[in-house]
């Protein structure tokens, strides 16, 4: 008789305990995990759906919604208790060109990840947003994906893991309009994939570097910025991380530039080799076929008669 009673108490207290600590999240998700739609506002499209299962598996699965969603601008919601800290509002104003829908929630990354956040602000990606007020500079979620589903950078699903990060950079850097707008090289990802680094990476070589291994990530700088690890000032040191004894003549090897007429020796060497290969191929195959036919002719029609 006493056992079921004890069990009930234990179960009830577990439910009570968990529901207390997740009270708010639980309330939010009761609607947002069920809503499947997207909402069009004058600022952009807001996805209202939260995949509860993926959210709970993410690194942020344990924290409450209002930790980041500190305020709702125009809304069907009741404002969370307490004012938004001034620091967050300032940050939100700073990055408002990027975060059109909810700059406060975007600025909230800073609350926990302040060190990474400040190096991002100093990066070429961050400065593009803050100084140039551009919409297409990469910010946290552009590389890491939705904060609701962020997993550890080494996990399989993470868009910044070793095997997916090249694609993630390519989301922007493969686009011609981005290359044109910011005067960046074209075909960068393509050239990387054709390089020995890229080919090894595609084949799954654990030591093959991806974009971030040479260029850096949160505090990424433009390549000609002396602070960039791939600038001429620092390149010897950067290449030297893997290639011991790298010198100034070594570090010119990787450029991610398509071979064009501006670099005539490899350009015409490649063209010449194609001609050479094709002509050797044509000669070899032609000769072999002719010889084979003549042998068949000799055996079948000339009955193996020896030539005189």
């Amino acid at each position: 008789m006493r056992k079921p009673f004890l069990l009930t108490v234990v179960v009830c207290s577990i439910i009570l305990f968990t529901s207390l600590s997740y009270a708010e999240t639980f309330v939010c998700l009761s609607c947002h995990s069920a809503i499947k739609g997207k909402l069009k506002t004058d600022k952009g499209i807001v996805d209202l759906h939260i995949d509860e299962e993926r959210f709970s598996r993410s690194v942020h699965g344990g924290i409450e919604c209002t930790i980041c969603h500190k305020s709702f601008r125009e809304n069907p919601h009741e404002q969370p208790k307490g004012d938004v800290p001034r620091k967050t509002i300032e940050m939100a104003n700073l990055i408002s060109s990027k975060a059109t829908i909810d700059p406060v929630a975007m600025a909230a990354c800073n609350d926990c990840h302040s060190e990474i956040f400040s190096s991002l602000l100093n990066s070429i990606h961050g400065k593009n947003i803050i100084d140039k007020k551009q919409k297409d500079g990469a910010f946290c979620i552009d590389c890491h994906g939705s904060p609701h589903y962020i997993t550890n950078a080494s996990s399989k699903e993470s868009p910044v893991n070793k095997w997916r990060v090249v694609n993630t950079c390519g989301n922007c850097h493969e686009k011609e309009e981005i290359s044109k707008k910011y005067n960046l090289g074209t075909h960068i990802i393509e050239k990387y994939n054709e390089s020995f680094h890229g080919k090894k990476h595609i084949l799954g070589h654990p030591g093959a570097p991806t974009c971030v291994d040479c260029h850096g990530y949160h505090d990424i700088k433009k390549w000609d910025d002396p602070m960039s690890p791939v600038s001429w000032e620092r390149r010897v040191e950067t290449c030297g991380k893997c290639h011991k004894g790298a010198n100034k003549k070594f570090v010119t090897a990787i450029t991610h530039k398509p071979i064009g007429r501006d670099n005539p020796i490899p350009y015409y060497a490649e063209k010449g080799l194609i001609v050479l290969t094709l002509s050797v191929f044509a000669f070899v195959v032609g000769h072999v076929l002719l010889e084979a036919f003549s042998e068949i002719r000799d055996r079948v029609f000339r009955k193996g008669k020896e030539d005189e």
Partner: protein
Amino acid sequence: MSEIKEYLRFNIVFRIQHVILFVTFLLLAFTGWSLKYPEPVLEHAGWWIRMWGGPKTAGLIHRIAGVTMLLDFLWHVLYLAYLLLTGRMKIRANTTIIPLPKDVLDLIQNMLYFFGLSRTKPKFGRFSYIHKFDYWAVFWGMGIIGLSGLALAFPTKAAYVFPEWSVNWIWELVAILHSDEALLAIVFILFWHFYNEHLKWDKFPMSMTWITGKISMEQLKHEHPLEYELEFGKAEGEKK
């Protein structure tokens, strides 16, 4: 002379050099192929590279095979120099591997024969133009693929050797040379060497000469009449 049934074409040293050459060649071609065409789209890079122990092991096999091949090549050149300097080998028009004007005439004659415009096949010495092409192609490959391969395998060392004015194009150049010439070598061996030494009517599935080093007297008379004449006189050839 009828008691001699076979004729020694390649001594044991040449046979060993040939075995090392083709084993390393195959290893290099197989491991290098997955780096030349690594696109997983082809659905072949995945299992192919795993067959060679993954990219790291395949890279190691490629480097070891490459260095072995170059050493084999070096051995071959030094051995030839030794044979020539001690007089064990003499350069004679009908036995040399060196290309001569006659080879061009032979090629033209052979073409005429193929097209049925002539009833006579060209008469070859120890090495026909087909053999010479096969042989010198390896030299070309050793120089271009071997040197560029060394630069790619030891890039930081190569950087000390490359002159200052070359550094803006030499890296692209060695990569292009290595991979394009390797493809050419594979295509060449696949068609030229495989047809002439494996697929030919009387050789299929392969000529055994690479193991025994010998060819039959019949074959010598038939395929290398000029060498036969040189060694055994014209008598029998004329009798016919």
